[in-house]
């Protein structure tokens, strides 16, 4: 949508207190920041990191679900899963192009993903062991992502906000198809119900970890809130997600694997048990076999595509040369 050429080669700004205050005033007035506008280097850097991670998450997120396309139990399920995985690929592309408006190249972002410098959502480092996992991912993982993404539609950076509007619109079916799968299994045979309960037991905690560390431990949170990159804190979003999800589990007579989960009348929301942050950091940092598989799969895709990119470029050169030669031949 945008090209890098739109951005001045020199992205740095004179970061005087006056400049920073004027920028903050623009943000406070809800004026969107666009690629050609002056912006603090920290704002640009934060967005490059966040949008890049978001894009990588969409792309890596195709892997756990792609794993089940050939084994979907019916044509209906297969068509829906194919459409969903295709959407995730598209969402990665929208996000990469939004990041490129900030002066980072697609190639650079790809290299950072492949050499492990860039992170992606920890959730995709868990394996998808049964068909029920696909339902649970749509319900919980997409549900959590939507909770996070809806406020991003109002992000202060225009290209990111516009990409998110498109993403949210397209994703509205993802959670519903997941819940439909879960519902069918939960209302099926005892074996099917046991399978979906097992998947829920494995995915619940990783899903609520998706919102990131507690506010007190989240190092970038305050500045991102002030710049209106984020509109809600990690804990606020996690709370909204849990409050929306508990009744959905109860409706299906499924048990969420948290003995401390209970309604708190005073705060008008659910309390939950302690989150295993050691596990979270282990997974984010890429320990464990799945993380290696994910990056290996992306690396293989990139390496296997090398000859295709080369051939396409050579073909384009050839066509250009022919077009230039043609008028001469006619003379």
């Amino acid at each position, binding site marked *: *949508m945008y090209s890098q050429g739109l951005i001045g080669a020199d992205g740095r700004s004179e970061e005087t207190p006056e400049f920073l205050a004027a920028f903050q005033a623009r943000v406070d007035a809800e004026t969107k920041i*666009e690629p*050609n506008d002056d912006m603090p280097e920290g704002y640009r850097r934060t967005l490059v990191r966040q949008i890049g991670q978001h894009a990588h998450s969409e792309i890596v997120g195709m892997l756990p679900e792609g794993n089940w396309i050939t084994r979907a139990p019916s044509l209906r399920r297969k068509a829906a899963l194919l459409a969903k995985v295709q959407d995730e690929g598209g969402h990665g592309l929208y996000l990469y192009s939004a990041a490129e408006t900030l002066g980072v190249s697609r190639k650079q972002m790809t290299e950072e993903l492949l050499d492990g410098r860039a992170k992606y959502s920890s959730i995709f480092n868990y394996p998808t062991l049964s068909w029920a996992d696909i339902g649970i991912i749509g319900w919980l993982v997409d549900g959590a992502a939507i909770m996070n993404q809806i406020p991003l539609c109002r992000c202060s950076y225009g290209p990111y906000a516009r990409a998110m509007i498109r993403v949210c619109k397209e994703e509205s079916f993802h*959670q519903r198809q997941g819940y439909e799968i879960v*519902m069918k299994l939960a209302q099926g045979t005892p074996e099917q119900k046991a399978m979906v309960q097992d998947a829920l037991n494995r995915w619940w905690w990783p899903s609520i970890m998706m919102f990131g560390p507690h506010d007190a431990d989240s190092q970038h949170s305050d500045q991102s809130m002030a710049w209106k990159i984020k509109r809600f804190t990690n804990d606020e979003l996690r709370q909204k997600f849990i409050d929306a999800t508990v009744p*959905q589990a109860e409706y299906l007579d499924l048990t969420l694997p948290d003995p401390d989960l209970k309604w708190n009348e005073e705060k008008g929301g659910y309390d939950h048990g302690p989150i295993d942050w050691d596990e979270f950091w282990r997974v984010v940092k890429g320990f464990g076999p799945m993380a290696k598989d994910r990056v290996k799969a992306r690396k293989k895709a990139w390496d296997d595509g090398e000859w295709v990119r080369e051939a396409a470029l050579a073909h384009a050169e050839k066509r250009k040369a022919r077009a230039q030669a043609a008028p001469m031949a006619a003379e």
Partner: protein
Amino acid sequence: MSGEVPLWEVFIRPRNGLAHKHVGSLHATDEVMALQAARDVYTRRGEGNSIWVVASNAITASDPDQAGENFEPGEKIYRHPTFYEIPDEVGHM
């Protein structure tokens, strides 16, 4: 044909936060003239705060005769949320 003044497509952003939208085209000898002309022709009443001009011959367009193959109509209904039956009791999803 030599001496012909090239055509440019003009895109205007009404305000920050919105995408640039195609508004029309104009003739100008280069991109600087095109931007100035676009401002005069298309933004006399505060229509925008940002202009893009793109040489018309740099745009590659899809073939209307292939619209059927390119843009499938609504048969892939499973791409839409209403295809999935979710009970009202579980709240908005």
